[in-house]
């Protein structure tokens, strides 16, 4: 370990001597610190980025400055985004491209209490369904609209309280996050009905890495190094969960975000599963063209966008 460290330091030192400072990359995940981004934290923590030859700074978004804002303002070089968010927000102004697709699977689901009478997806018709006020509503709405259900969408900030007090009949949640919050608020899994979007033909990939097109042209090598370091970080997180969770909890405490080990541990396990392509005919980190088209069609048919991109315009992997 010490020898490894020494080698690393030596390497960095030589790099500094040779090229002066390491090229700097500012990365912004699309949400506050949590296990969802454990791979980036571990890549930084374990020096994988430095070993790749870049100096990475992770800056989280805030309520007033979202990841996309930071990218637009060029305060961040790379951001993570849901595939659907990226496709919905890509514009001439925010000319971003996907350089790597981390998540291959959808973690979205509707959850209802068994007592609510919603036993099958059809039962959602004419029901009140909670949905994030801040976005990520495209896929749930597409799923509901494709079945011609009438749904009263109730905007919810971020808590599960509306669900807990029966303010909604069902709620849109992430498997790795809000679902576990409900469990941690006293509901047992057997008291809940779950409708995973992936089971209804909407296995839309989520987290991916994005940068501006011009950054890709100018700094392709640095981006490649970032992606390589990131995957090493995820690999490390997978093999060293305890250490990883300790880092995540530390970062969350520093940011005064209430959390606990049980929840972050659940989240890490689930996020790691999402990275695996499974039956999809792509490698880890690749975006399947079919997923791209399916996602873009959801947005187009939902009238979120009026212009379609070519796959090659959107997906420019930096392998």
């Amino acid at each position, binding site marked *: 370990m010490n020898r490894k460290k020494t080698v690393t330091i030596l390497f960095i030192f030589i790099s500094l001597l040779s090229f002066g400072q390491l090229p700097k990359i500012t990365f912004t995940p699309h949400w506050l610190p949590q296990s969802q981004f454990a791979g980036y934290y571990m890549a930084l923590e374990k020096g994988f980025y430095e070993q790749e030859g870049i100096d990475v700074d992770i800056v989280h978004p805030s309520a007033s400055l979202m990841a996309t804002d930071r990218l637009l303002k060029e305060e961040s070089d790379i951001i993570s985004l849901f595939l659907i968010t990226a496709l919905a927000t890509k514009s001439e102004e925010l000319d971003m491209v996907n350089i790597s697709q981390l998540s291959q699977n959808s973690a979205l689901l509707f959850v209802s209490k068994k007592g609510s009478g919603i036993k099958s997806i059809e039962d959602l018709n004419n029901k009140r369904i909670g949905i994030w006020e801040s976005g990520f509503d495209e896929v749930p709405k597409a799923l509901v609209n494709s079945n011609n259900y009438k749904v009263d969408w109730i905007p*919810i900030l971020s808590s599960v*309280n*509306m669900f*807990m007090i029966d303010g909604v009949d069902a709620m849109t949640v992430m498997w790795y996050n809000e679902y576990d919050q409900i469990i941690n*608020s*006293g509901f047992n899994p057997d008291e809940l009905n779950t409708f995973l979007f992936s089971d209804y033909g909407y296995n839309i990939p989520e987290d991916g890495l994005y940068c501006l097109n011009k950054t890709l042209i100018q700094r392709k090598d640095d981006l490649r190094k970032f992606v390589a370091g990131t995957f090493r970080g995820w690999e490390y997180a997978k093999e060293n969960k305890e250490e990883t969770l300790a880092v995540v909890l530390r970062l969350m405490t520093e940011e005064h975000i*209430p959390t606990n080990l049980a929840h972050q541990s659940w989240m890490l396990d689930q996020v790691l599963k999402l990275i695996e392509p499974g039956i999809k005919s792509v490698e880890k980190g690749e975006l399947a063209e079919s997923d791209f088209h399916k996602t873009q069609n959801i947005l187009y048919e939902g009238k979120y966008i009026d212009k379609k991109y070519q796959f090659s315009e959107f997906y420019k992997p930096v392998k």
Partner: protein
Amino acid sequence: MKLSFNINKSLAMRLVLYVLSFCVFLFIVSLAFFYFFSKQSIEKMTVNNAEAITQNTVLQTEQVLIATEKILTNYKWLFESKQLNCDSLQAITKLIVKSNPEIMGSAIAFEPNFFPDKGRYFCPYTYRDKDSIVSMYLGNANYEYFVMDWYQVPATINKAYWTEPYFDEGGSNALITSYSIPFHKTINGEKKFVGVITIDLSLSWLTDIVSKVSVLESGYAAVISRNGTFVTHPNNELIMNHTIFSYAAELNSVELREIGRKMQKGETDFASVNLKNTNWIISYTPLTLSNWSLAVLFPKAEMYAPLRSITTTLILLVVIGLILLTIVVYRIVTEQVAPLRLFANSAHEVANGNFNNELPEITTEDEMKDLHDSFVHMQGDLKNYIENLKNTTSAKEKIESELRIAREIQMGMIPKIFPPFPNVTEIDLYAMLEPAKEVGGDLYDFFLIDDEHLCFAIGDVSGKGVPASLFMAVTRTLLRSVAPNELSPSVIVNSLNKSLAFGNESSMFVTFFLGIIELKTGRIKYTNAGHNPPVHVHAGGEVKFLPITKDIPIGLFEEFSYQEKEMKLKPHDKMLLYTDGITEAENKNEELYSDQRLINCISIYLRKPPKELIQHIAMDVAEHVQDNQQSDDLTMLSIIFNGGKKEKNNA
């Protein structure tokens, strides 16, 4: 010595062991009962105590909550009943904050576009910022208060709502909960929801109340919110970070999760739970106004600590008591059984023949005294008995020695030198007498009456032992005195009978055979007085019983007249005389030797000289009798006639 010591030791030890075992058993049972019931009563006390503590704590918190709720209820009434002047509302929020030091902020939030000229958002808000009070209006594109829990939940459920606790990061940095109540207006005859009044309440007072709850050393109280979030807990890291359910997941405690669910449902109950290897009794009860729940935790180890210490002391005392008891019991028993040891020694001495050995002195009037008396009695009896035994033994020895002498005398009476008449070549003769007891009643005799006549006789006196032997001696003596002058067997027998029968008060009798052989010719005259018929062994091989005179034994009737018969032995003929001791010899199966077997035996050895013939018959009888005790005298006499001298000479 060793024996007595062992009895003493083992008895004492055994008694001590029994007493001790029973005491230990009693003690364990009593202790178990004591422990069990004490534990139960402690648990009961704890439960009562828990009830008191939780109720008291709940009461204190409810007071604050009620007071807070009242403030808003009053304003709600005001807003619903009066015409609302939107510009005066900020003053109300200010007043609420100003006049209630525990209130950190207050807002009156309206539905979108309620006041058309105020736009989408209208929410006058006043909050405490350290020492100053700041007023402002909430709501913009980045702060859609309509989706905030404090607005959205009461608006949706149309009921007052205490929010989940949260950190007021901007202002006091304290833990805060908001209490919101929806209010309505009747517009165009329709009652419509128009907004909520809310106040932010710092939870420091709750933390104060709950943290003051102290139970024993490490017991404590905690409050969880509706969702199970820790609002207060001695471990600050749990507050807001954990729900009771996530904590249960981390501790891998299914029980804690179940307790959490019951608390969430507003139940009041007790439960036992193990958290981080510590056993607790949890008493929980809801804070009904806010749907929160209070738990008081009692550390079991500490609850039972006094009981444990009492029990430990008790065990220690009892152990000391048992040790003392052992010593005392051992001493007492040893002392009590000490005479036994002495008695054992005495018994040993007595066994060694020392009857005058002194017995231990017993002063008590108990079983020991009885034992002592028994010993004295035994000692005396044994002494007498041994004395008697000595006398009897010496008497017996004397009799035995006399009997031995009598036997010698008796045996001395009958001729025992064989061959008896080496010069008399006409005959050879052999006889044996083996008495069943020391002295017997059988007799045989032979003697030369003159140069040509040999008298031979065999007899069996009725009965056995000394009387029979005496009678036999008399018979034999009489025979010797009567025979020398007489050649007729019947005359001799008659004479014998007369002498014996005369004054025969003991009524003893003798079966008797007497023969006189003429040596020259082998002619024999004989008289048989009730005796077994002798066997005539012909030289040619024929073996048969001699025809006998049918006369009664001698000694019975004085006047009885005995007959005589005559027969002749051819050269090399033999005659065998015997008593019934031979033919009636019994084996273990009570089978007799029998006449037939005698004849058979003789037939086998008929060519043997008298001595060998008799020895063979004796061996055959011994073989028949085997180990069975000899019950009668065994007597045999055999004569072989070798042929007359003259005839021999003539030949």
